[in-house]
């Protein structure tokens, strides 16, 4: 009887072990692992990092940025640490590792869109997939944002981290998903894809409609909501290391600008964000309307290569001027306004 019970359990466990090894192997090729390797071998001469989600990953061309830096031979060496489909919690973890590896970073450039700076961190089980599994690599620090002061929450992340089939569970899902999409397209027109995924899917990243966008922004402005905890932690970390922190309103497609950013509520929201930035001694760059041609975007939110080059060059020129100023500044439409607080 014992034999009939234990042999199947042992075999099932061996199969699960093999599945874990397969997942661990598949996870080595993911973007988040590549970024972790890049962080571990960050060049000592790095003094500027771009940080954020896929908007930064796609939109920042470090080379164009360096070339455009207009202060002679003191152009900073820039590294793009943007990682698609991530939130400020993962960005904090990335920045912390970057400072641990390279303490001489002078500029942290953080790109954002919409209400990303104020949104509360959300780390429930179903959210921590894909690149957000980066949170499992540093469970204690991530749990401090997702479940503050909860030993149970921290323990949950730590335990999950130990099992690849849980922590890296999405590493094979993408292959299943690609297979499913191939089946979907049999006899149907092919859907347009770019380096991040299906172009049409990125419409989901924008607000569902104008009323929901207005409601979200209104709620933040009326409550005078501050920056989210992970963003605050990033700002504090940068200041601790003597680095300048730049908040960059990332370029948005003409459609997004027209639909959402032309609304009076976005002007109020921007003004609120700028006042928060001033309080935190952070520079705020309004770059959302720098790229005006729809042909410079590869979908509703991401810049394409030529768009990224154009934006990064302008950002390099602008920040090189701003970085020479001791006080925090605001930039609107490329016209610099220096505020002495």
């Amino acid at each position: 009887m014992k034999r009939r019970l234990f042999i199947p359990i042992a075999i099932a466990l061996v199969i699960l072990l093999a599945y874990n090894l397969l997942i661990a192997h598949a996870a080595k090729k993911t973007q988040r692992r590549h970024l972790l390797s890049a962080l571990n071998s960050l060049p000592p001469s790095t003094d500027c990092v771009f940080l954020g989600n896929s908007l930064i990953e796609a939109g920042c061309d470090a080379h164009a940025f360096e070339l455009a830096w207009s202060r002679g031979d003191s152009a900073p060496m820039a590294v793009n640490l943007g990682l698609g489909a991530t939130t400020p919690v993962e960005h904090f973890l990335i920045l912390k590792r970057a400072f641990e590896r390279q303490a001489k970073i002078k500029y942290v450039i953080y790109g954002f869109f919409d209400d990303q700076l104020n949104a509360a961190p959300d780390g429930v089980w179903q959210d921590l997939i894909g690149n957000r599994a980066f949170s499992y690599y540093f469970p204690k620090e991530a749990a401090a944002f997702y479940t503050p002061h909860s030993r149970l929450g921290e323990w949950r992340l730590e335990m999950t981290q130990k099992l690849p089939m849980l922590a890296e569970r999405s590493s094979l899902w993408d292959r299943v998903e690609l297979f499913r999409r191939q089946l979907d397209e049999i006899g149907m027109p092919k859907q347009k894809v770019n380096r991040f995924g299906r172009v049409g899917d990125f419409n989901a990243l924008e607000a569902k409609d104008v009323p929901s966008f207005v409601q979200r922004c209104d709620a933040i402005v009326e409550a005078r909501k501050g920056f989210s905890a992970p963003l605050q932690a990033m700002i504090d970390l940068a200041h601790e290391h003597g680095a300048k922190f730049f908040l960059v309103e990332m370029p948005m497609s003409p459609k997004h600008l027209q639909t959402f950013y032309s609304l009076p509520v976005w002007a109020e929201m921007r003004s609120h964000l700028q006042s928060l930035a001033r309080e935190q001694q952070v520079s705020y760059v309004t770059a959302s309307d720098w790229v005006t041609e729809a042909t410079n975007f590869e979908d509703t939110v991401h810049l394409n290569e030529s768009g990224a080059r154009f934006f990064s060059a302008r950002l390099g020129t602008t920040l090189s001027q701003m970085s020479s100023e001791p006080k925090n500044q605001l930039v609107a439409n490329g016209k610099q306004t220096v505020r002495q607080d």
Partner: protein
Amino acid sequence: MSEFQQSQQAEQAGNIEHPTSNIQHPSALATLSWIKHFFDYLGASREEPPPGASFLASPIWLGIWWGVLIGLILLFCGQTSKFIYIDF
């Protein structure tokens, strides 16, 4: 009388032919029956494996079967997630 009751009565009276009665080859029927028995056993509807498949009752097969099932569930359970970013 409901439609279901009427169809039950008709079937008991022999007025309805069973769909499988159109199958002319007894071997095909036996194969279908064996396959049904096989899946019934895998699905735990029967306690005895079909003839010639006694390996299904072995502990080794059970371990492989449940291990593979768990693996497949883990592999395919991401379908409902908001999975739009794929590293192409």
